């Protein structure tokens, strides 16, 4: 177990290093363009040359990379050109707001997906299954920007019960979270529900369910005592992998509702070619993804040995 953990951690580090190299390569291999982006298009040659020397861009690429990596690891993430602030101050603020949004959405998606998925998978092909599957397919077909438009039209303009933007200028107001959360939940729960359904349907077809039936078990006992324990393992990994999606995939929703979260930050950084900010955002999202993958692998292996069958006959 320890060996497995260490091996995976090593792999994670390897991935992060490669990723950081790629990011730096893509964004800063051309030193001249970096200067343009930071100081602005209207700067002169001399100004740029001066800036480059001051900031260590005369050194060869690899050395610059190492320097940057060293600074980055120590928490020095540079300054945002657009926001005129230290990235290390900006990022946590915006990230925490996204965490609130994503967390709320997550807290709704998981129970919804499980309830619907289990109800659908228990009896494959039943009316419940067909209806739920249709709802799931339908909701995941509508992209976030489309549902954002429609939900806004209904709740903001027609019914007038919710605010149209979520800028949180007067501190935290929960009403401003409702629409963004709705959009996210609507788009994602269908996908997770279908994974749960598939896992459930597969388990219900297993021989040990038939054994339970032959013992005289009631349907409730079969589902709750026998099926669920085995059906929930695979969806857990899927659910863990929703977390990284929730961090960056909500970009559209955040931009639409002007919610000052991580996605908006990344979007602005992109529009403004804000190199330092992009670097930090990219590294952060990669870090989140890699960490959740690791946790999900760990969860799967701890839950899995109970599921692994052994020996087939005649295999020797």
């Amino acid at each position, binding site marked *: 177990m320890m060996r497995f953990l260490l091996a995976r951690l090593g*792999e994670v580090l*390897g*991935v992060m290093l*490669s*990723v950081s190299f*790629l*990011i730096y390569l*893509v*964004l800063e291999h*051309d030193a001249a*363009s970096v200067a343009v982006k930071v100081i602005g298009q209207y700067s002169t040659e001399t100004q740029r040359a001066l800036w480059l020397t001051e900031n260590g861009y005369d050194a060869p690429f690899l050395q610059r990379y190492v320097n940057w990596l060293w600074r980055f690891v120590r928490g020095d993430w540079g300054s945002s050109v657009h926001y005129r602030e230290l990235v290390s101050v900006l990022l946590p603020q915006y990230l925490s707001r996204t965490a609130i949004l994503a967390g709320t959405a997550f807290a709704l998606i998981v129970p919804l997906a499980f309830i619907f998925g289990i109800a659908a998978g228990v009896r494959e092909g039943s009316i419940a299954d067909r209806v739920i*599957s*249709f709802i799931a*397919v*339908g909701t*995941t*077909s*509508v*992209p*976030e*920007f*489309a549902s954002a*438009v*429609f939900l*806004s*039209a209904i709740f903001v*303009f027609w019914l007038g019960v919710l605010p149209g933007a979520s800028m949180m200028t007067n501190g935290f107001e929960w009403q401003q979270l409702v629409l963004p959360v709705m959009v996210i939940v609507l788009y994602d729960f269908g996908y997770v529900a279908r994974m749960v359904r598939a896992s459930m349907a597969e388990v219900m077809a297993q021989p040990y369910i038939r054994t339970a039936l032959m013992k005289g078990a009631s349907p409730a006992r079969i589902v709750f005592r026998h099926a669920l324990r085995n059906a929930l393992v695979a969806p857990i990994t899927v659910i863990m992998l929703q977390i*990284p*999606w929730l*961090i*960056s*995939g909500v*970009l*559209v929703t955040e*931009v639409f509702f002007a919610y000052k979260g991580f996605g908006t930050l*990344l*979007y602005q*950084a*992109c529009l403004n*070619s804000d*190199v330092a900010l*992009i670097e930090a*955002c*990219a590294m952060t*999202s*990669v870090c989140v*993804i*890699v960490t959740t*993958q690791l946790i999900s692998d760990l969860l799967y292996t701890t839950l899995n040995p109970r599921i692994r069958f052994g020996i087939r006959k005649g295999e020797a």
Partner: protein
Amino acid sequence: MRALGRALRRPASAIGFAMVALWVVCAIFAPWLAPYDPLKSQVPLQMPFERAPDGGVFWLGTDLLGRDILSRLIYGARTVVFWAGVAASSAYIVGITGGLCAGFYRGITDRVLSFLANVVLSFPVLVLYILIIVTLGASGLNIVLAVTFASAPAIFRIVRALSIDIASRDFVSAAITQGENAARIMLVDILPNATGPLVVDACLRLGYIAITIGTLGFLGLGLPPPTPDWGGMVNEGRGMAMVFPHLVVFPCIAISSLMLGLSLLADGLREASRAGAKA
């Protein structure tokens, strides 16, 4: 192919197929189907069914700049179908090649390829695309590049898992004992038997790519205007959506129907190949 036939017998997948086919037809035959030039400004902000200056009808109305929305939808299908198709094809070529090699050879080949896939998989699509846009600028080709990067590792994983499973079957062992060369084993024995799940995946993936292209268009990061782009249309029109809902409703319906059609088709194909396997 037979799976397709079986799938079409179910009403849900038949509807899905029809929806997809509709947009593909629009994409291919756009110049003949569209009543007007999608880039030509005529009368701004006409409601649906209003008359056009030349005597025809703006079936879906016109947008802010006076361009016929129906024509823009039809040409927009061309944009989406074409670029999503190209991006998906490129991703599949990369993913399938890598997956077959990793799954068949295993060992060091597998470990290196899997590591590379993991590195790329740690980038979310939008972050990847933003990186590319910032450095290379926005264009169709760059979208293809970003999508290939983003999708190929997932496809690699699927193909690799399928290859490992198929390679454990006896007919692959038979080919090995006959001295068949690796390339032929991969292409004749393994790949054709993996097409079932891959086709199902392809339908869904095309849909997700189409949505990504739409989203990028919505964010203003997609293909540069004035190329008709469903996402871009929603973005342009959203300020006036309350008074002129037709500006956003129709493009939203377009993209949702394409994705829905692909999803229904994928589900139908999956059920059909399961039924076929049981027989």
